């Protein structure tokens, strides 16, 4: 079966050059980067080259990059690490219990959301900023949420489901004015849009290799020099003690190579992919009655479109399309693999039935014109087939 892939936000294939760069570090150059001897030094060299490559992708210095197991660990490290280590105001009669306070958004990835919720249970206060229909937070609301005990603002760069990009420079300015640490989950933006940690004003930034053609299980946390951050794991002295554990040399090399390729091809990729994305989006809007784009008026990553097809269940459409050879995504998979209503779509104000009727198509470096044509042929007919059997579609059609 001809199989086309529109789920690059979930993961991407490892670029052949990346794989080639990694392969020597499994058996030939197998040294432990923490060892003193020559094999160790060779591994260390490869790790440090990768650190520079990753730093270059986001405008950071190499010593500000810590390698982690991926986006989830980076996010947890940032959130827990800042809060545990934070200085708090002295208790006063007015404020006898100055528990630390975090500001985040309702549309974060679960890695940030659930970390904040876990802290909430142990007494940390958390403000979850709402997002509007276009997936954007309100900066005034952010300003008003700041308190003397606010120790961290964590706002994602690009949203995984919508592709919408937050105005991080503004957030960074607000954080800097109030002297609050600022973390961003850039897992969905790294490699897709230009990132400069100094321009954005972030102190901490999470990224993950497999979202930009690197291997799974490796990521990085950018930690601005001087940031007070408690380590998450305890062990040896690897990575300045920030992240103990024998370095995943092959993975780190893969991440570095993927970052290098991303930096070189980012502009050209973005132009090409956004043209294809727009063609897909416009084509589907034209061919599927009542279809709309979620977050479409916002600044978005070039590869993502999230569409609502009223009157259908996204879960059924996803399966129908998969059986026809087209892979895309809806909502978030729970531990059993069943689809749960997307907290992002609910948070931006979509009614539950529309949240369930939404599908995400995310394109990538290998998406072709022919694949877009295939999607434009298959998706409208699948939606039509679903609507014919849908008990809710007649109401949708009538209401418009």
């Amino acid at each position, binding site marked *: 079966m001809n*199989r086309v892939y529109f789920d690059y936000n979930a993961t991407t294939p490892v670029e052949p050059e990346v794989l080639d760069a990694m392969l020597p570090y499994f058996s030939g150059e197998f040294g432990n980067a923490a060892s003193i001897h020559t094999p160790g030094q060779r591994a260390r060299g490869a790790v440090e080259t990768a650190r520079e490559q990753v730093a270059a992708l986001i405008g950071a210095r190499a010593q500000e990059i810590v390698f982690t197991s991926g986006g989830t660990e980076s996010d947890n490290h940032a959130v827990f690490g800042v809060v545990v280590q934070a200085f708090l105001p002295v208790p006063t009669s007015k404020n006898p219990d100055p528990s630390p306070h975090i500001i985040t958004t309702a549309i974060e990835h679960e890695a940030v959301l659930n970390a904040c919720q876990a802290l909430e249970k142990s007494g940390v206060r958390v403000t979850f900023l709402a997002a509007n229909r276009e997936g954007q937070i309100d900066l005034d609301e952010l300003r008003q949420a700041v308190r003397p005990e606010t120790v961290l603002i964590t706002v994602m760069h690009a949203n995984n489901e919508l592709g919408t990009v937050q105005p991080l420079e503004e957030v960074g300015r607000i954080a800097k004015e109030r002297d609050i640490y600022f973390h961003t989950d850039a897992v969905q933006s790294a490699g897709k849009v230009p990132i400069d940690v100094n321009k954005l004003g972030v102190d901490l930034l999470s990224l993950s290799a497999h979202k930009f053609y690197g291997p799974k299980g490796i990521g990085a946390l950018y930690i601005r020099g001087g940031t007070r951050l408690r380590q998450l794991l305890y062990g040896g002295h690897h990575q300045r003690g920030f992240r103990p554990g024998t370095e995943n040399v092959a993975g780190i090399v893969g991440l570095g190579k993927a970052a290098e390729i991303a930096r070189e091809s980012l502009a050209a990729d973005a132009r090409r992919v956004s043209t294809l994305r727009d063609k897909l989006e416009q084509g589907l809007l034209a061919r599927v009655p009542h279809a709309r784009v979620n977050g479409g008026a916002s600044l978005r990553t070039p590869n993502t479109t999230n569409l609502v097809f009223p009157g259908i269940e996204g879960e*059924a459409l996803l*399966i129908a399309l998969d059986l026809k050879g087209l892979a895309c995504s809806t909502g978030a998979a729970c531990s059993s693999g069943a689809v749960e209503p997307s907290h992002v779509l609910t948070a931006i104000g979509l009614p539950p039935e529309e949240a369930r009727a939404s599908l995400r198509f995310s394109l990538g470096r*290998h998406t072709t014109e022919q694949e877009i044509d295939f999607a434009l042929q298959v998706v409208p007919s699948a939606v039509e087939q*679903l609507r014919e059997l*849908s008990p809710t579609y007649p109401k949708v059609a009538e209401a418009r």
Partner: protein
Amino acid sequence: MTTTTQFDTLPERAEIQRGLVAVAMSGGVDSSTVPALLQEQGRPVVGLTMQLWNQRRLPELQGDGPAQHRCCSLDDVYDAKAVAQHLKFPHYVVNFEAQFEERVVRPFVNQYLSGRTPIACTNCNTDVKFEPLLRMARQIGAERLATGHYARIRKNDVTGRWELLRARDESKDQSYFLWGLSQQQLSRSEFPLGELTKEEVRAVARRAQLPVAEKPESMELCFVPNGNYVQFIQAYSRASGISLHGSEGEIVTETGEVIGRHNGVHEFTIGQRKGLGFAVGKPLYVISIDQKQNRVVVGDDDALRTTAFQIEDVNWVSCDTPDAPLYAFAKIRHKHEPAAATIEPLGMNRARITFDSPQRAITPGQAAVFYDGDRVLGGGWIR
């Protein structure tokens, strides 16, 4: 794709084509054997496992250990996935939690609270498996939905009706739970195990080397941990804001003599002897439940035996609604030996059933299903 990626190494999946069959897979041996049988017939299959209930909803019912052998436990989902991987067909977990709660769990609790004894499996079949799941099966391109039920379906070429029949293996027969199916639902369903015995099913599972071939059977109501439905009703009511306050009441004899108190009518079912909470000379049984007065009425075994009762929401399956009383065998609970009875349609989807001889513990909320030989003529809820 123009480049070679890891996707080319996925197990080959069923092409969409005429005759695709969706299989409802619970992760148990029965429903796992269905795709093996269909594949032996050369038919393309797609597996669907329903996520129906989240045990975390009622954390107070959680034991200390992992949630094994419970509804939608991850183990069962993984078992279904493992079978699909083994037989190399596509498999999806689909979320019907909202429908399950609305159409099965909440009515189950409400029925108990109103003094009836419901059958959740029938609601699940009629209103979930063969309703939204069957619809989804068709939406994704399958012509039919196959399940692991022990029952048979056949088209009667003379009457043009789809008929529901008892399973060949009488000890496994589940036709009692399927009387609510419409002609359209039956026409799009398949029960491939209907002709097989349990042992034959196990043999097929072993022959196909299914990873669940030796899995023990689960007989519990899937969403009620440990089968303790009283505890479940209390926990669910608390979590859903249903007040059980004031549900306690009197236990009385048929003559109205108060002989004890109870903590809520949901703790009782007709014919129940245990748990009446007091000892008297002769065995007493619950003979009726009066929800309006919160009374549980008890009496001796003879008082439990009645002859006539009414049913509602009657569905005629293998024949049209008869215009005259009909003589058939009626079954009033899953383990009841069908007894000769006259079924008299009353209009408004009701009917009166009169047994030839009194039957024990005719219980409101259970179903009466009438048979002509192996054929399920129809059924209805006991009022």
